[in-house]
Structure formats: C-alpha cells, structure tokens
C-alpha cells in the first residue's frame, strides 16, 4: 500500500544532499572548540563573572565532550563525492 515518490527525485536528494548530521557535527566542533578554548583560558585568567562551582571547570570538559562528538559526526557523515 505504501507509495513512494519517483525514483529520480529521491536519487537527486540521496546522491547530492549533505546529511543533517554533518551540519550538527560542524556546529558541535565549532562550539566545542570555542567553549574548550574559553574554559582553558579561564584556568589561567578567572572570569570576571563569578559562578557557582567554578572549580569544576565545566567549560573544559563540556567543550571537550562536544568537540569529540562533533569530530565523530563530521567524519562519519562527511559528504562523499558522487560520480556523475
């Protein structure tokens, strides 16, 4: 009973579209790097705005975690070259 769109339509999408997960990987890499960088900077120069539990240095491990996930997603969903 299921119906599908014409094959060429899906093919165009599947062969040429960049995966959404790649974009998510990019944003995690950029944000992870920025937050990790800010966290490491904060180890040496404490921020003016004092935060509760600042000694946990959440920016360092949260940024690192985002960066790791981001790299995994970018590599796994990197757009492949499609033969014409």
């Amino acid at each position: 009973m299921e119906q599908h769109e014409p094959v060429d339509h899906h093919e165009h999408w599947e062969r040429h579209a960049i995966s959404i997960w790649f974009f998510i990987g990019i944003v995690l890499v950029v944000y992870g790097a920025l937050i990790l960088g800010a966290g490491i900077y904060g180890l040496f120069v404490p921020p003016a705005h004092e935060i509760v539990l600042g000694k946990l240095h959440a920016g360092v491990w949260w940024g690192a975690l985002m960066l790791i996930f981001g790299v995994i997603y970018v590599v796994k969903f990197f757009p492949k070259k499609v033969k014409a």
Partner: protein
Amino acid sequence: MQASAHIVSLGTIDIVIIAFYFALVLGIGFYLKRFTKTGNDFFMAGRKMTAWIAGLSFLAANLGALELMGWSAAAYQYGILATHWYWIGAIPAMLFLAIIMMPFYHISKAHSVPGYLQLRYGNSSRTLSAVSFGFMTVLMSGINMYSMALVMKVVLGWDIHFSIWVSSITVAIYVALGGLLSAIFNEVLQFVLIWAGALLIPIVGLIEAGGWTKMVARIQQNFAGADLTHLWRSIGSFSGNPMGIHWTGIVFGLGFVISFGYWTTDFLVVQRVLAAKDLRAAKMAPIIGAGFKMMVPFIVIVPGLLALAVMPGLVGESQAVATGGHSYNEVLPLMLARYAGPGLLGLGITALIAGFMSGMAGNVSAFATVWTYDIYRHIHKTATDKHLVRIGRWATILGVLISIGTAYLVMQFASIMDYVQALFSFFIAPLLATVLFGMLWKRATSAGGFWGLLAGTVSSIGMWLWVKVNPNALAIIALSPNAKAMSENMYRALWSWMIAAIVTIVVSWATKPKPESELVGLVRGCTEIPSEGHYKLYQRPIFWAGVVFVVFIVLNVIFW
C-alpha cells in the same frame, strides 16, 4: 537599560557563538533551496525524512523557548506536578498517534490535518479547520515572538525591537527558501543545541545540591508543609496541591483531551511526521519523539526543582516588580547565570534562541501549507504546482509579518495575549473528536463531522465567556471553586470534546453515510494496514511503543 538591570552579560566569545548560529541556519536555508522545486518538496519536505529526523523535528517544533522558560517557572511554582505535562500529558498521545492514527494520515496521503478532513468529511469541515488553524497559528507565533523579545530584554538587556526583527527575519528567510525541508533540518539542529546548552544546568545543579535525595530534603526544609516532589500523591483533592487540581483533571482533561488534541491533530507538530519517507518511518517518528519527550523534564523541570532547593525566595511577577527582586519566571536564565561561564553562557542563550526559532518556524511552515493547500488552492483551482510554491514562499513571509504585527499589538494591549491563548485552546479539543470519529468510525458522516466540530468550538467559547462574566460558574465548569486557570482549561476541554463527540454521533445517525468504497485509506475497518510481520521484532514500531510505554509507567511509579 543599566547593566545591572539584566540577569547576564555576554562576552565576546558568547556573541561569536550566537552569531555563528544565525549564520549557520541561514546557510542551511540557502543550501536547501536547490532541493525544493516542487510543492511536495516545499510543503511536505519531499516526504523523504527518516524516522529520526522526522521524530526529532516533531519534538523540536514543540520545544520552544517559552516552553523551556515557562515549565521551569511552573516547576518552581508547582513543584514536580509540572512533569505531568511531559509524561501523561504527552506520551500516551504520541504513542496513539504512532500506532493507531499514523497509518490513516500516511496512507491517505493527506498533506495536512485540514486536508485529511477534506478527504474524510468534505469542504465545510476542511474550511472551518483550515481558517481557524491558519488564523490562530500566526497570532500565537506573534505572541511567542513578543514574549521571547521580552525575555531577551530581561535576561540580556537587548532592545525589544532588535530581538523581534532579527529573529523573525532569519526565520522568514530560511523557511521561505527551503520550506518545510529547511524548517525540519534547522529544528533537528536546534534540538541538539537545546540539549547541549541546557543539559549542563541539572548536572552541575545536582552536584551542588548533593544529589537527588538531598535536593528533595532541602526542598522539604525550605517549603515545609507543601508537597512539591510527588507526582500523584497530592492530587487526590483540589485543595491538597499548589496547582488546585484533581487527578481526574490530569488524567481525562490533560492526559486525554488536551494531550491527544495537541499531539495528534495540531498540524504544527503532525506536519513533521507527515514528511516521513514511508509508513514505518512515520510510525517510528512519534515513538522516537516520545522517548526524548520523557527526558525533557531533566532539562526543564529539574532546574526548577533545583532552584527550590538552592535558590528559595523567588516570587511572582507582580511582587518581583514591586520589590525589585527576581521572579520565578526567570528561573532558567538565573540558573544558567549561576553555573555557566564564558562560552557556556553563549551556548545556553543560543539554546533559548534556537528554541524560539524552532517554534516559530513550525508555526509559519504549517501556516504556509494550510494557507496554500487548504485555502488558496480551493479558491484558485487551476493554479499550477510552480505557482503554489511561489504562493507558499509569500505565505511564509506574510505569516511572519502578521506575527510581527501581532507582537506589536500585544506590546500595546497586553491583555490580548490571554484572549488569543484561550482562543487557540477552543479548537483543539473539538477537532480531536472530529478526527478520531473520522478515523475510527465509518458511520461518521460529513454533516456529523462539521456540526460536531462547530458545536464543540462554540460551546468551548461559551463556557469560557460564562466564567468571565460570572466567576461563580467556575465551580460548575471545573467542578470546584478552588480550581485554578489550568484546571479550568482542562475541564472546559473535556466538556467541549464530549459535546463535539455527542453532536457528531447524533447528527451522523440522522444523516446518510458515505459508501465504504469512498472511505478506503481514511477509516479503520475500510483500510488495509500493511503488515509488519516481515520485520524483526526490534524493527517493529509496536515493539518500541511498548518499550516507551513501560518506561513511562515505571517513571510515574518511581516519582509517585
């Protein structure tokens, strides 16, 4: 505004994070334009979304910034009772949509909920539903826009006009370019950002509070006599809980009518699963959404509870204005400012902006589809597909402009907000009766569907007006003079659903039904549902629906 007048101040790195977000969502919109050539691409995202993308988008369209801010505030005000809106107020309905209703939405190839009503009942029901949905959607979008701009002013000190115009123009550009495809892509991105930005608050908060048990003990110490940490124990009577609600209202009003009405018939969310690539993906999408929905209280309710433990003393809005203190409406940004340093602060604010934009994109993409397919196409019957795509792009821009106009109207007349929010709720409960009877009862007729929908809507408006004119009527509508606004909404929804159902049944029995041959693909009993027997157990939607339902029961027992 002085720097000290707002809650947080952003540094350069935070601004860079926010700016990158805006650049990325616009970039995605421009990139996806090349894939949206036809009406099917623009309005239905080509019906090629995987279960995961459709499911996360389904949830993200609902996970707006006001949802995050509002329910954190509700958790501070009412305690863990607010979790009902995420569990019993969502999970059964999402699973019902997946297993029972999705086959008919998908097999009928309906492009929208009014589109399904057109196929099942005919023009009258479709027109009533489309006009009310289109009108209310853009008004709600405007109200959310204004509320978000107000939040940005309070939290960051940003100019209210700047927030309104920058965010709405961005949404208008990326939705007008890539249609539903662009909205869905960005919603999935926004979903990830919301979690990345908000998840740190409960983690660090629980470390500060010393874990869940110690947090509960501190709440009981700070608010002795009030039960703020149990889901069901305190709702045996209207007066035994801070919400003034009874379990019957939660189970039947919220758990059935409001929840089923919203999650199964509000086109804003249903549109996302209609874009799934096949029936299995369409059924799995709401189940995946339900799985994540169960976890949302961790980033929304837990911060509110943590604030009860570590930040007691927040007050209501009017008292905060009078005393210069902080309102519990600001609890989420206050917790963000408490734990987030440079960079993380920018990520948290980006999460709020992402939440706002995903909600708004959901509104305008649904509006554009309903306007173009369910209203315009029936006026201009000879319009080509290319012409309809052009109309859809303009409808997107028009929808955003009306939303902006509404935002400015609300800025001048704040009471409009209450009226429009009430108006929106008038249509949800009766529509549920109309759609449910349409899908599950082949005897329901065109006249029954239309008059049921109309009677339910008019009676809902009537009950609301009755309480406005005579506050004593609350004891009749909501079964108790102690009932609060939320409780009144639930019982009003329940009565209007029942009226719509009774009228649908009575009128249907009195009128001639459609022949069964015209109901194939639309109604249970006339439609062959494809078997899933060839899938392995763990690939079947019913298996995962069962898993989600068991977890839902266990969570309710744990937090009983």
